[in-house]
């Protein structure tokens, strides 16, 4: 097992300089998740406009490089996308985390760097933490609309 697979440069970069790490009074998606294994916690915020487009996305919280980088990349990847597109990204990301090869990786952008996590099963929970929050947020949004 090579650690380089896990700690790709782009991951360390997102960890050191997280994008969109700030609070939003979103009035939209605002979901907190915690990983009881290690105490990592993440809150994901998404502002969705009237046409169903995520005009802003951000996160807060603390945790390991994997959970932080994953959240940071998530916010970049979903910004400006429509909610149903975002659902597709969530699905593709989960597939990647389940070790499934396949199309859709190109849609994941930087997130492909997280592919190496698959070889570290206990760390998958870190990578998906923000995504669990996002998915919960989308369900809540869809119930409300």
């Amino acid at each position: 097992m090579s650690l380089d697979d896990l700690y790709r440069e782009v991951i360390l970069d997102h960890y050191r300089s997280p994008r969109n790490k700030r609070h939003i009074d979103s009035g939209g998606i605002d979901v907190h998740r915690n990983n009881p294994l290690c105490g990592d916690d993440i809150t994901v915020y998404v502002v969705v406009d009237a046409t169903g487009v995520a005009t802003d996305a951000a996160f807060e919280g603390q945790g390991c490089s994997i959970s932080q980088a994953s959240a940071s990349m998530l916010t970049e990847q979903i910004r400006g996308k429509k909610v149903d597109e975002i659902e597709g990204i969530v699905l593709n990301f989960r597939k990647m985390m389940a070790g499934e090869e396949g199309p859709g990786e190109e849609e994941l952008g930087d997130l492909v760097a997280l592919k190496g996590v698959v070889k570290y099963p206990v760390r998958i929970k870190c990578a998906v933490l923000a995504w669990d929050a996002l998915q919960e947020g989308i369900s809540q949004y869809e119930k409300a609309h």
Partner: protein
Amino acid sequence: MFDPKVVRKDFPILERRVHGDKPLVWLDNASTTQKPRRVIDCLVDFYEHHNSNVHRGVYALAEEATELYEGARAKIAAFIGASGKREIVFTRSATESLNLVANAWGRANLKPGDKVVVTEMEHHSNLIPWQLVTQATGAQIVPWPITDDGFLDLEAMPRVLDGAKIVCVSQMSNVLGTINPIRQVADAAHAAGALVLVDGAQGVPHLITNVAEMEADFLAFSGHKMLGPTGSGGLWARAELLDAMPPFLGGGEMILEVWIDHATYNEIPYKFEAGTPNIAQSIGLGAAVDYLNDLGMEDVRAHEIEIVTYALDELRKIDGLKVFGPADPTKRGGVVSFWMEDLHPHDLATIVDTEGLAIRAGHHCAQPLMRVLGVPATSRASFYVYNTHDDVDALVAALGKARETFARGGGLPF
């Protein structure tokens, strides 16, 4: 004094290699310990020669199993200085023992407004059971603060004890390593009219424990953290307390006479052992106690002080590494929690794992303490009788590798 390099040979798992060819370095002893050949053999012998339920059969195997099981109880009673084996209840774990006290004693004795004192360094297992029982009874939890250097704040003692019904305190912290002054706490608590429940999950395996000298009322311990099988553990309590407490779990063995709507209960400790107990596991714990007695608990403690001294010295040499808990190795056990700048403990543990080292990262089931320390998590290495200076050196080397992987950035990432 034993040589840990010789002791290691008694533990088959320490031959293991992980991640290809890396020799296993087990440094998560605060979570669970490895098992010596003697304990494993004891289990095999039980299942191959004596397996039977206990207490209820009149045949040869039932007699043998009962004698082994009750023999283990007597060994454990002697190990912790109990006045007799009727004061030892077998459970699965320290957690179960603590829940037993919270439920059997707590539900019968707590009223609205009563105070339950819980230290800020308690493990969730000595906190959540009290949350559940205070929620049910209307009593309230009072946190006992700690000082900056990781000791119980004794200045706060008179305040927290005022009006307290019970004080829940760990013998040794599983995060800070702090050894708490149980006798002093017990004397003050008793003077204030409170009972004292000691969580000995970390203390009993590592310290010379004598309940008579401690003057506490309850002591929970965990067999799997002292070389015993998983599923072993127990509770010591003063006989008068056990006698007066209602039962916790109901079922076979804990009864005398049963009608459809009521029953009378067996004598202690059986009143608290409902159903088929963890028979082989408790017998295996007896074998672990034999093994520890052969090493000698004085020497177990001396080895621990020695290796912690070395570990603290070496870790302090690492730039940007902060160790939590007392600085003096004679005031702490073999649990060393630390934070390494720029490296989240979770990442750190993954990296050292690739070198074969098992250390723990996280909140260590002590989230309130993490808040007090101002960290989301720590890394934790914890030592036991088979750990050597080589293991400490391997840890230091692996930490170097972790630092390399995460080339230095700026400060704590939170």
